[in-house]
């Protein structure tokens, strides 16, 4: 009987050794979090960011804006990676007009200063046509294409007249450049994952998600068996 238990004890011990090593090493590291400033140091390896689901920044709409990129992620608008304004409606494009940037959503025009500072949102109350589909420039003046036809205005954009022009330079959809994606990822997710968080997730099994909890439970159960079988053998021997 003792021989049988000893055989099991050794097998379980070998299995549990790896788990114990990981637990001990990560435990020692975590014990010195403050000494090594692990909560201030970040890991931004692509596979880690991907694992934590913070690598993807997917814009809802991206438009080319005369040397810049205009994008919308939920209700936040960005010029390149700079947050500039909010819009609950989807944007349909943007133009540079005089010293302003004009972003069109489906029911309003959002004005930014030359420095990207939010000026105001102009909507139907100021006579902006509704159901905007796209925005463009014709001879340096703003043009809106709506469901009810094409409209043109001047730099003030308070009076819109219906028109029918050709050769309008429309704001066009584009792909998000990698450099802006990286900057946006930094905006949303900071510098990456702290070493403390990474080591702690290895320590408690969360690095493997829901499965990690069950694996940890399994090794915990092995540790109980190991303790009981060790005690049993010790009692029998003495």
């Amino acid at each position, binding site marked *: 009987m003792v021989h049988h238990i000893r055989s099991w004890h050794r097998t379980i011990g070998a299995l549990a050794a790896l788990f114990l090593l990981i637990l001990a090493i990560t435990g020692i590291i975590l014990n010195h979090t403050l000494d090594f400033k692990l909560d201030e140091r970040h890991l931004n390896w692509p596979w880690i960011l991907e694992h934590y689901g913070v690598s993807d920044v997917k814009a809802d709409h991206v438009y080319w804006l005369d040397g810049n990129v205009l994008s919308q992620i939920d209700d936040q608008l960005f010029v390149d990676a700079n947050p500039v304004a909010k819009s609950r409606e989807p944007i349909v494009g943007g133009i540079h007009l005089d010293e302003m940037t004009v972003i069109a959503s489906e029911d309003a025009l959002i004005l930014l200063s030359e420095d990207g500072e939010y000026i*105001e949102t102009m909507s139907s109350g100021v006579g902006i046509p509704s159901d905007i589909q796209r925005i463009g420039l014709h001879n340096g003046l703003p043009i809106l294409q709506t469901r009810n036809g094409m409209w043109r205005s001047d730099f003030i954009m308070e009076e819109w007249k219906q028109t029918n022009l050709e050769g309008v330079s429309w704001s066009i959809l584009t792909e998000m450049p990698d450099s802006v994606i990286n900057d946006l990822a930094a905006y949303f997710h900071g510098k990456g994952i702290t070493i403390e968080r990474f080591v702690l997730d290895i320590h408690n099994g969360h690095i493997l998600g829901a499965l990690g909890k069950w694996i940890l439970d399994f090794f915990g159960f092995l540790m109980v068996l190991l303790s009981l079988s060790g005690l049993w053998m010790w009692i029998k021997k003495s």
Partner: protein
Amino acid sequence: MSSVRLQLRYKLLLLVMLPMVAFSVSARGVYQTDEAFLTETFDGKVPKSSVIWIKGDLRKTVADILSHKYSGMRIRYWQQDERSAWILNEIGKEQPITFGVVIDAGKIAHVKVLAFRESRGGEIRYPAFTRQFTDAGLIGLELDRHIDGVSGATLSVWAMTAVTRLALYLDTLTT
């Protein structure tokens, strides 16, 4: 407890909860477009809009009134004789509420919720609440009267109060 009684209890609970859920859903929405608000305010003859640029000392005063920095660089208004109309957004708890404020001869003529996006606090749109603001003016930067709150809508009440104070103050700069 018998299963029949248990079922009855669940049904009663559902009956009590349904109106609560229905209310929180129905409170969100656009109640009046900007255009319709202005048309109503000026009897169909909407004047050309003007703007006030928010800079320098005015930016500081506006921030004092709102208790936070104003996010835009200018505020638009519509004015005809002694009547002015303001469409202003202010965050209640998390989402911006769009208010329409009408001022006549330096006093609030009326204030309306044009669009409400919060999940709670929609009670502020009812005339029973908004009529407290009628004829209110400013003493310094404060309203000349106390506004009774609404239980569960404290932040929305604060937002409406701040917006009316802002409109009244800006109105003094237009005349």
